[in-house]
């Protein structure tokens, strides 16, 4: 840290800094600012129109419910599998750890297709049997939850695993030797030390879950007020030339995602970001 501050600033430093800021300004900052500006073009009219439209509010509600389910599932699964991957040895561990990242590299449309082939009501592999048992997955909320959980699956794990590696097992073993059970060790020792990584992973998952579009489009059937999520509404409104509503809904989605991210970046202890 000290040597970093002592680094002399040459002309190159400023050129690089300006170049990077300019690039990010043109690619991210300015476009995002324009959407915010367009949302508030006519004062609060756009937001009011959007929020009094039942199609939009129903979609937002569905999105929030689905995102919460997906994030809850991914958090429990993520913490569990991270502990298993880091703290235990078993055959196939490396293969599993590689496969966990798979959802990040799969096209959302392919995710949708895969879930339809497995859980589609008429010609899916498990779909007809589940439907006979009274559980409709494709073109219903469970399918949307599955698609959302699929695309955001690795995010919690990717944040926790490096931290688990770093903190080591000394404290856990000390707790164990002092007579703590596995649950007690987890709640008192492990969880507090992975807290920030977990929060960051959960926020990333939430952002991804709220914003999923392609996979949901394929498995949801996109029926207004039933299986239409907020991102699907944005597409429809934009294409129906109700751009005010499209911008307002986008703004709300972006607001939740970016606000969560900013809050975590601010709250997270500085030394944690530096990876120390």
């Amino acid at each position, binding site marked *: 840290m000290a*040597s*970093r501050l002592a680094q002399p600033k040459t002309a190159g430093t400023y050129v690089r*800094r300006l*170049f990077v*800021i300019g*690039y*990010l300004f043109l*690619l*991210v900052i300015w*476009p*995002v600012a*324009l*959407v915010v500006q367009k949302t508030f073009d006519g004062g609060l009219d756009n937001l009011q129109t959007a929020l009094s439209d039942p199609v939009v509010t129903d979609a937002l509600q569905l999105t929030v419910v689905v995102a919460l389910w997906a994030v809850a599932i991914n958090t429990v*699964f993520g913490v*569990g599998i991270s502990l*298993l991957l880091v703290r*235990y*040895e*078993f*055959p*196939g561990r490396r293969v599993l750890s*590689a*496969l966990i*990242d*798979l959802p*990040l*590299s*799969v*096209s*959302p*449309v*392919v995710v*949708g*297709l*895969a879930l*339809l*082939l*497995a859980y589609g009501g008429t*010609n899916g592999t498990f779909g007809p049997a589940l439907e006979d048992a009274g559980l409709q997955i494709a073109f219903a909320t469970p399918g949307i939850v599955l698609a959302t*959980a699929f695309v955001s*699956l690795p995010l919690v794990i990717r944040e926790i695993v490096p931290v688990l590696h770093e903190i080591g097992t000394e404290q856990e073993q000390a707790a164990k030797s002092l007579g703590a059970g*596995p649950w007690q060790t987890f709640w008192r020792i492990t969880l507090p030390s992975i807290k920030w990584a977990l929060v960051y992973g959960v926020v990333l998952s939430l*952002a*991804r879950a709220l*914003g999923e*579009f*392609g996979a949901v489009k*394929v498995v949801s059937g996109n029926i207004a007020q039933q299986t239409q999520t907020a*991102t699907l509404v*944005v597409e429809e409104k934009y*294409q129906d030339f109700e751009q005010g509503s*499209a*911008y307002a809904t*986008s703004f709300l989605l*972006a607001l939740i995602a*970016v606000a969560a*991210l900013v809050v975590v*970046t601010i709250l997270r202890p500085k030394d944690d*970001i530096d*990876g120390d």
Partner: protein
Amino acid sequence: MTVDAPLAPGTARKRRARSRTTLTRSSGLGLGIALTWFSLLVLIPLCLVVIQSVDGGWETFRQTLTNPQTAAALRLTVLQAVYVTAINVGMGTLIAWVLVRDSFPGKRLLEVVIDIPFALPTIVAGLVLLSLYGPDSPLGINVANTGRSVFLALLFVTLPFVVRTVQPVLMELDRDVEEAAASLGASRFTTLRRIILPSLAPAITAGAALSFARGISEYGSLVLLSGNLPLKTEVASVRILTYIENGNEAAAASVATILLLVALAAIVLLQVLSSRVARRG
């Protein structure tokens, strides 16, 4: 569960197989539940895609891939993903460098800006880009419905990958070595080429693989921006969706399988690289 250890003679193999697992009964149960969920959610559905693609024999596969519209979509997707990845390798490394080595007011704001493309819903990302580079552009640049729109959208959504993989490595990099090189008379360029780049190379490649995989699979941000014009701005994901909507699941699965194979290749590359990094550390 089978033990996939390489065959070694007699007792040595037995002992090795036993010592390779440290699972207790309860953690074993947890692993079982986790694997079941992972299989039901990810592995089985993805396998079904691959099975579906070869179900009708190689004929469907061949027919789909020789369809001029699909071939054009695949070519466009891979080509643009390669261009964007190349830009990201340069810009991503530079951004990471500035974020780690430089200090100025507002640097933490830039940290958040880097994460925005990841946090923003992809459909909103398309809308966002459309506002500056669309028909009402205040800059007078309109890329909507052209090949450039695909490039721009991919550039936006893949921005964080190289930055976020290079940044931690750059932070850990020992400054003493650089100073030693400089004191021995190495120019700044030589230090960069001989000392810094070799240590960053694995991280850069890993980020590039992620960015490429994301690039070839992008869909949401292109919907509003590229117009999905056949043979011009239509990407592979859009082709898959069209096939699904037309009820041609076999053809959809064929294109999807190609994308999966490319993504898998990227992951394998990642794994090989990260284990090489681990060995070096």
